């Protein structure tokens, strides 16, 4: 697999404030990488360093094997980008802005453009000043999805979109992925990343704290177990790797390190199990674990 984006120890200061401390991750061809973290964690800053809009002051990054700052001109025509805050010229219509972007990007697919306008239910004849946030976002997305690219970078793409339009966006992302393109998708909405992403990189205060496939990450964390048994299960609470043990009537609930699952299983078989449920961690749990402290 060829690395499309490769970031190694990226840093960025704004004056004295260090927005990026240590950003390392890779995006390979055919991969959707979710880039998640709360507001202010440094997602947009990372993306803007990667796009050569601002210059990182430590570490290094390449896209298509080229330096993101020095060789940005060679990189940009192969990248489609939608910024987090799509701001448009109020006096131009949505249609005009989309056309302008497509042309300046180097040309695109006219039928694709029209099809996307229809799918996203955008009125292209309206002046941009009358668009809502969601509609501005649509203009940015339609423009970016209409041009040919090998790498797509979306910064919080669905903020302001209603759920129906979010679905349209997800379909589009799946198509791009199927075509073997690479996608970097930043978000603080976990469910959307969970649905689309093969890999996630979790960023916190300018640092990547976790990367990997969703499965790998789940493995690192705890599952939730709900259990009803004939005998009293409270001894389980003392096992290594078991946490948050609560008992409510006959049912007990606890979380368990995935690495300790086997020990727990062996212990419960002796209790006369009536009900046993294991819920794998959601990304939400994963996320919370990194942020709770």
């Amino acid at each position, binding site marked *: 697999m060829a690395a499309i984006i490769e970031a190694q120890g990226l840093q960025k200061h704004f004056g004295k404030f260090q927005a990026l401390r240590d950003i390392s991750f890779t995006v390979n061809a055919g991969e959707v990488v979710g880039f998640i973290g709360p507001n202010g964690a440094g997602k947009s800053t990372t993306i803007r360093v990667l*796009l*050569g*809009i*601002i*210059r990182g002051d430590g570490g290094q990054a390449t896209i298509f094997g080229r330096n993101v700052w020095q060789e940005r*001109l060679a990189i*940009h*025509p192969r*990248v*489609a*980008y*939608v*910024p987090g*805050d*799509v*701001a*448009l*010229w109020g006096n*131009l*219509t949505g*249609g*005009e*802005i989309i*056309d*302008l*972007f497509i*042309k*300046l*990007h*180097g040309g695109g697919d006219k039928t694709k453009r029209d099809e996307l306008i229809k799918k996203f239910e955008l009125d*292209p*004849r*309206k*002046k941009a000043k009358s668009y809502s946030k969601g509609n501005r976002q649509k203009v*940015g997305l339609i*423009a*970016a999805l209409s041009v040919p690219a090998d790498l797509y*970078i979306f910064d919080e793409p669905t903020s302001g979109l209603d759920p129906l339009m979010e679905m349209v966006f997800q379909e589009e992302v799946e198509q791009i992925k199927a075509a073997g393109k690479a996608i970097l998708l930043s978000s603080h909405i976990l469910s959307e990343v969970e649905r689309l992403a093969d890999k996630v990189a979790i960023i916190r205060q300018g640092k990547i704290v976790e990367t990997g496939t969703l499965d790998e990450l789940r493995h690192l964390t705890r599952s939730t177990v709900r259990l009803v048994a004939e005998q009293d299960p409270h001894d389980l609470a003392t096992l290594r790797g078991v946490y948050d043990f609560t008992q409510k009537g006959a049912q007990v609930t606890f979380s368990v390190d995935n690495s300790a699952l086997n020990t727990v299983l062996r212990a419960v078989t002796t209790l006369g199990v009536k009900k046993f449920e294991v819920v794998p961690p959601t990304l939400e749990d994963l996320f919370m674990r990194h942020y709770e402290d």
Partner: protein
Amino acid sequence: MNEKFALWTVLLRQYLKRDWRKIVIWVLGLGLFASAYVPAFKEIAKGSGLPTMYTTMKNPAMISIVGPTPIKNAADYTIGAMYGQEMLLFCGLFAMIVAALHVVGHTRKEEDFGLTELVQSFRVGRQANSLAVIVETIFINLLLALLTAGVMVSFRVASISLPGALLFGGALGLAGILGAALALLFAQIMPTSGGASGATLGLVGLLYVVRAGTDVSNVTWSWFNPLGWLYLTFPFTDNNWAPLVYGLLVSLVLVVVAFVLEGRRDVGVGYLPERAGRATAKSGLLSVPGLFLRLNRGTIISWMVALVLLGMAYGSIYGDMQSFLESNALMKQMFAATHTSIEASFTSTIIVVLVDLAAILPIAIVNKLFTEETRLHLSQLYVTKVSRRKLYWTNVSLALVAGVLGVALAAGSLGATALAAIGATSKMTLFDFLAAGFSGWPVVLFVTGLAALALGWAPRLGKIAYLYLGYSFALNYFGGILNLPDWFTKTAVQTWLPRLPVAQFNGPTFATITVLGIVLLVLGDLGYQRRDLI
């Protein structure tokens, strides 16, 4: 009053309470502006000022700007006559525009924000709001009329009588009422509040231009122009009250029509449908130059118009220069001694003003790129095949082209008008004017370079180019008078350049400043390549 207007007095009281600060500023500001220049006019009138002004104000160029006077010979031109001619139309326009914007603001704009529906969900009548607003505006304009008249007579100038002052104030008030009535009408017709104010202001502008033509060619036609009704009252001279009556009648008709139209339409929509924009872009927009031209179009056009008008205004003075010289022996000697004509001397001074004004536009265009950057309009465009170099140089080129055009239009309109005003006796040609203008071109290039340097390295300092321009303009002007040290005046780039047509063109200086300007542009580019964009 029927239920359509239910509770309108409540709304009126609300408005008066809410707007009182605005009303005070409006009435005092406009009223004093219209009336308090009487002492200044008294100064002008001293000595042989009045007959001189009379000649100046008989100039068609001046008439087209301020309007005519009924006075037939210079001896009858009083302070009052002069005041009426020079101030009434101008102040009336202000009164009209302020009133129009106020009415649109309280009617369609509130509809667009959805406030109207909120108010109407109480027991307020559907049309109570419009009635309240129009009554409020009439009340404000009556105050304005009385204040203006009162202040004017308080200066105790013989030719400014009470009836004349009341008529002057009344005409001002009428202007406001007419503006309000027009705005109320357009508020019903146009699809948005922006459209309503645009249409009103556009119509007022059109009427102004039309009356400029009819005033010069045949004043009778101006009687058919609502703007004409302001100054055709001729306060302090003919004191004709008839135009006020016409104006009030027409305002009444406009308001009634507006109410009928409003009664038949839905909240938030006008009679004209909202014009849909283009679904696809014209090819003219689809390039970086096309985009930048579009973004700066309004600014460029308005600057060009302003420069042409200014050139014409200054140019129209040339006709009176010889007669001025005839009446002033000292000046005549002075010009004879220096072997320059008064026209050439005046040109060399005024051209600096025009070139400096023309230099503002390129600075504005260069700074616009950073404005676009801070508004995040360009974020998505950064990641296309468009390079930073392309953005920078397209922007700079547009600024320079606009600068060339500005200098050409300002100097050209000055020259053309001047030559027309002087007539066949002129020793100057249009080329002399253009040469004088373009001999100042390095100034434009230099300040554009300063702005570009800021854009590249410290974009938040973009205003510095304006500051420098203002500073050097002032220094250039007062330097000679105040006898400042040479090194100090030389910090103003204008002082390096000889002033044509009085002085000789200096090639090396021209070239030096030009090169300096180009160096600044290149340095700016280096910074723009390197810095973080927003």
